[in-house]
């Protein structure tokens, strides 16, 4: 929907006339329904309109306290395709960053600015009050810490369709949260991890991309949750979801084996024992890590923090994820009332450190 502005009597007016004025290097915005409303938004970078807006798509994300210079190429990791750029909105409002004169960046910056003025998206926008003669800028309409992912879709091969929802876990891992209608300023979480030189987008597991719960969790629930305990429950729901997938998959395989071996009682006995084993949560978690991930998860800091927490709460520590994380889960779920007050910070850190691990699980999960 177009950007809106408030006039007297709290009436909202849509800004649906957008023109670039070369003489003033600014975008002029106006309203078809009210010709008295006209104002400029200056564009201080060099305008590069060598490619029309229609060749680009932008997605709005949010990253708390993002640095102005956090500007990266975006690559699709699986197919090795360069898609575009990701950068803070602040990078469109300043010449001080390292890419303000970059000939490869400027077409994307120009298109993004134009598309932001036109705003055809369904995410949160601010609605300032109209004051004649005031010079507005994009931050009057978009939240600070807004991040723009600008992709040159014209350059995509015919066989490739970009679906942002497949990349939400990857973005989430680095603290980039796709904006929704809700005020992104309400987002409670952030990640310290910084990209090195480019943003390699890795899609979510093909076996999970039809699951709408993951979208709900990563877009609407987890980012806005301030309560650490509920945050942990949300994260553990991912583990539960994967274990459920494993449960169904293992039973399917077992059923197929049973059919194939129905005349062999010794094999049937083994299969039944396997089924019984898969009923155990801990065993399913073990199986998730050993058989159902394409890449081993990296969990060094999480392990140490979980074990500190477990030690403070007189629980058994563990060497592997399926032990230490599961033990934390059990301690919290079953004995929350008895948790040591001195372990509150450790629990906060566990929740923080388990978020990127959760993303890795969603990306690397593979049904076998």
């Amino acid at each position, binding site marked *: 929907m177009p950007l809106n502005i408030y006039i007297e009597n709290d009436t909202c007016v849509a800004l649906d006339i957008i023109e670039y004025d070369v003489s003033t290097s600014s975008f002029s915005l106006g309203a078809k329904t009210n010709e008295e409303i006209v*104002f400029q938004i200056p564009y201080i970078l060099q305008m590069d309109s060598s490619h029309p807006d229609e060749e680009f798509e932008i997605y709005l994300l949010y990253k708390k306290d993002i640095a*102005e210079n956090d500007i990266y190429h975006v690559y699709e990791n699986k197919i090795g395709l360069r898609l575009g750029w990701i950068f803070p909105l602040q990078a469109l409002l300043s010449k001080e*960053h390292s890419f303000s004169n970059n000939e490869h960046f400027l077409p994307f910056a120009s298109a993004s600015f134009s598309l932001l003025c036109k705003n055809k998206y369904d995410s949160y926008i601010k609605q300032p009050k109209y004051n004649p*003669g005031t*010079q507005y800028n994009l931050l009057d309409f978009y939240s600070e810490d807004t991040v723009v992912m600008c992709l040159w879709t014209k350059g995509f091969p015919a066989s490739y369709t970009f679906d942002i929802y497949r990349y939400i876990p990857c973005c989430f891992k680095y603290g980039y949260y796709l904006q929704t209608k809700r005020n992104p300023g309400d987002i409670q979480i952030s990640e310290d991890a910084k990209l090195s030189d480019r943003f390699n987008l890795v899609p979510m597991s093909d076996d999970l991309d039809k699951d709408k719960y993951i979208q709900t969790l990563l877009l609407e629930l987890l980012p806005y949750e301030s309560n650490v305990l509920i945050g942990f429950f949300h994260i553990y729901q991912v583990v539960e979801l994967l274990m459920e997938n494993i449960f169904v998959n293992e039973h399917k395989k077992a059923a197929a084996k049973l059919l194939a071996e129905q005349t062999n009682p010794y094999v049937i006995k083994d299969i039944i024992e396997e089924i019984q084993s898969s009923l155990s949560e801990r065993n399913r978690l073990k199986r998730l890590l050993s058989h159902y991930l394409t890449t081993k998860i990296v969990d060094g800091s999480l392990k140490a923090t979980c074990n500190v927490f477990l030690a403070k709460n007189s629980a058994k520590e563990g060497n592997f994820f399926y032990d230490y994380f599961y033990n934390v889960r059990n301690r919290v779920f079953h004995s929350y009332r008895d948790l040591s007050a001195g372990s509150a910070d450790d629990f906060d850190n566990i929740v923080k450190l388990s978020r990127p691990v959760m993303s890795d699980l969603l990306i690397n999960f593979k049904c076998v």
Partner: protein
Amino acid sequence: MEVLSLLKDMRINSTNYLIEISIKDYLLLVRDIMKENEFQRKRVKSSQTIYSLLKEDILKNCVVPPVVLALTAMDVHELPTKETFNAFIDRNKRHLLILDGLQRTYSIIDVESELISKGDDGSLTEFYSHKLRAEIYIGINRIGILYRMLTLNTGQTPMSLRQQIEMLYSDYSKVPFGAIELLKEVDGRFAVGLNQFNFRDIVEGFNSYLERNELPIERSDLLENIKSLEKLSQENAAKDIFKDYLETWHSFIMKMNDIIGEIEIAEEFNSEYGVPFGKNIFQVFKKQQSVSGFGAAVGKLKDFGIVTGFDDIKTSIEGIQLGVSGPDFIWNINKSLDWIKNNSKKIGNAQRMFFQYFFRELFNPQSESYLNANATVNTAFHKYVSQNF
């Protein structure tokens, strides 16, 4: 022109002449200054309906509210009488500025153009004979005129504080200021010489001094402007503080040139960190961020009672030492600025803040790094990090 009244404005120490002038004479008076004086605001691109109505009213000889002008000539020693007023204005008209009534003036010019293009000589003659009232402030107190400009703009299309300061000091940009030359973008020249400065940057820096705030003034409402002028009223209103500020800044640049000269940063910096903030000392300190940091720092030092004014700073400048070799200093300050560039949400603002800390520490006799430039870089950097991360 007929002088109807002459009043002394004691608040701003200036004399206000109320005149009645024909539209024809008014256009002769202001047309050139609107063409030549690039600091006059461009026409506000706003509602065409409102301006159409205004033009119609002007054509019908409505009573237009008085426009307000100011004469900013620096060499006015004797105020004109009612009798000598016309000749006086004619001699000095290129120094006139429109404080209030710019959009009305554009509308009057539009009406004239339309009548000329229609070939309607009769209506044009009648239009030229319509009378307009104007107030003209004549005085040399620029800060006072700035105050009057702000109060006149109440409730109207706001002019930024910086725009008004630019307008007030536009004369300085036209003639050499002692050894100092202020260059505007329209001059088409770059401020490469030791004695050359970008006018816009200097104005921003002076703004920072007035506001005690190194951040760019993007929008200001009347209340903010009045508050900054209340601070200014504590200064001696008769003294030209802008001149003191500029001369002091120039002294600092000259001093840094004396102790470092044109040494450039080692090429290895590019491969290790990327493009430096400034290859040499002039590129570092002549940027807007540094000038603004300087202005804000001196303002704060004055507010804290650590210095009495620019004179104290000028005296201190002589004692500045690098503390390390020239190449090491340039490397060190660029390294700090590079970290700031890679880690701050708004690079420009962060750099300004760094420089504000830098100059505060450099000129504060109570600071451990007082007058030691390299030590001050480290102190300022740590202060910036501790305040922001």
